[in-house]
């Protein structure tokens, strides 16, 4: 006999032996390359002065020296996107979500648990925003364009030469391709154009890219050489904080390249699943890459005294996230809101290299 809906009345036929409220963690991803900084302002600026890489020319003693000027400065101004996630915590929410999940029936401190339950919802909303930050960081690494839905996408103007398609002949899946030559090209760009002084690069890709690399005949040939050790590929070491897995180190040209995979995903607003990193791309980041995750000022309401009277006044709060709660006593409803204005912002824009390594 099939289980009927009446059987779900647990006092009759069953016992709750466990509860599971899924809480998917948001791993750090590229966040280690984007340390956080808050600002009080709506917009944030980046001041840039380029270097012509000139060489000095000797002069004859006691004659005029070479005159130099440093007269060009570029100011880049950005307005971070604004995120506002709301959760309406109402009377029925208490019954349906909290008590129905079994957290209140036998607990004398039920009201505290209800409040904690509300806090969990806030944490989940914050996780949504954190995923958007991870997406921004991955956008910077792959295209240099932070995609916005209700704003103008922010284009950091990466050089075309920093985003290459290796082409069918050099895709890692091609038996005659030489992946180490492509890795060397990445390091050469980062050193020559990006002015990176780091000889160690981090190559971050999806599992598909790594699988193609490890099975590429030319790569295998060099990795298997027992007399010249230019590749040390190991069992994966998963980092539970970043979500990256380390697979070892290879050398290409002058560069040592750490091999990482990053296979974390998220669910888009339309319900489809997407990965932060494209399956066919690999990004190369030197150790001296600099970037920030900047949080713009957040609009808020604060109580102020105006002429001896208390009044709620608009204000700006400098914070990564701002939690606000507003309630209506008659309808016993409360809205919990979390806001944030984050922007992943590269500083050394030419110290990122992206290659399409698969078709």
């Amino acid at each position, binding site marked *: 006999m099939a289980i009927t809906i009446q059987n779900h009345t647990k006092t009759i036929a069953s016992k709750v032996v466990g509860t599971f409220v899924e809480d998917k963690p948001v791993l750090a991803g590229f966040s280690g390359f984007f340390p956080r900084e808050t600002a009080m302002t709506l917009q944030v600026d980046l001041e840039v002065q380029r270097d012509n890489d000139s060489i000095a020319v000797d002069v004859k003693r006691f004659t005029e020296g070479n005159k130099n*000027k440093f007269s*060009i400065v570029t100011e880049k101004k950005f*307005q971070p996107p604004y995120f506002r996630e709301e959760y309406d915590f109402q009377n029925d929410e208490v019954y349906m979500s909290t008590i129905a999940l079994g957290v209140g029936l036998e607990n004398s401190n039920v009201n505290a648990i209800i409040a904690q339950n509300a806090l969990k919802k806030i944490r989940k909303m914050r996780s949504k925003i954190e995923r958007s930050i991870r997406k921004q960081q991955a956008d910077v690494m792959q295209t240099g364009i932070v995609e916005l839905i209700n704003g103008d996408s922010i284009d950091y103007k*990466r050089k075309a030469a920093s985003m290459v398609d290796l082409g069918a002949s050099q895709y890692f899946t091609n038996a005659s391709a030489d992946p180490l030559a492509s890795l060397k090209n990445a390091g050469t760009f980062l050193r020559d154009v990006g002015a990176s002084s780091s000889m160690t690069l981090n190559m971050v890709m999806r599992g598909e890219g790594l699988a193609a690399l490890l099975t590429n005949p030319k790569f295998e040939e060099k990795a298997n050489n027992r007399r010249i050790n230019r590749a040390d590929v190991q069992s994966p070491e998963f980092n539970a904080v970043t979500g990256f897995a380390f697979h070892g180190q290879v050398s290409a040209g002058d560069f040592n390249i750490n091999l990482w995979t990053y296979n974390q995903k998220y669910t888009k607003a339309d319900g489809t699943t997407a990965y932060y990193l494209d399956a066919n791309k690999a990004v190369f980041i030197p150790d001296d890459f600099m970037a920030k995750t900047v949080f713009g000022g957040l609009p808020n309401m604060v109580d102020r005294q105006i002429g001896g009277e208390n009044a709620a006044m608009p204000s700006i709060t400098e914070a990564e996230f701002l939690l606000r709660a507003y309630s209506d006593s008659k309808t016993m409803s409360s809205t919990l809101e979390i806001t944030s204005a984050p922007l992943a912002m590269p500083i050394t824009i030419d110290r990122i290299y992206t290659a399409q390594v698969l078709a």
Partner: protein
Amino acid sequence: MSITATQRDATNNQSTVDYIRKNLFLYGVRFAKGVLANKTDPEASQTATIGQLVVRDTDTAGQLTLATASNLADVLGITFMDTTILADNDATVAIDYAIRGDIDGGLLQLPTGVTLDTTVGNKALRDVLNDLGFVIFAVQEQTKIDN
């Protein structure tokens, strides 16, 4: 000395401005005061700005006019002033002008068709300026506008 600001890549969420600072006068520059007059013929408005060459106004004692390709031998200084439009003939403006010192030759505003190597009698224009006491340098820019 001036700063120009050029905006690019402007959207609702980003904007880039390139600032370029121009320092014509570098070292040991001495100045004199004068009155610059518009002496265009045929009559027209005239824009005067920093870095232009000036000669004496032979019609009015004590006044200056902007040098042209035909009177480079008479150059006596280089303007140091805010950009001004002299609306019509005989319109004047009080200015400072440099009479000697180290200058960035690349920032001079020479008359149309004139370069520092333009022949003036048996000399080049740069020799004329040297004779006045200007030392002309090709100052090397060490920065650039990029992405």
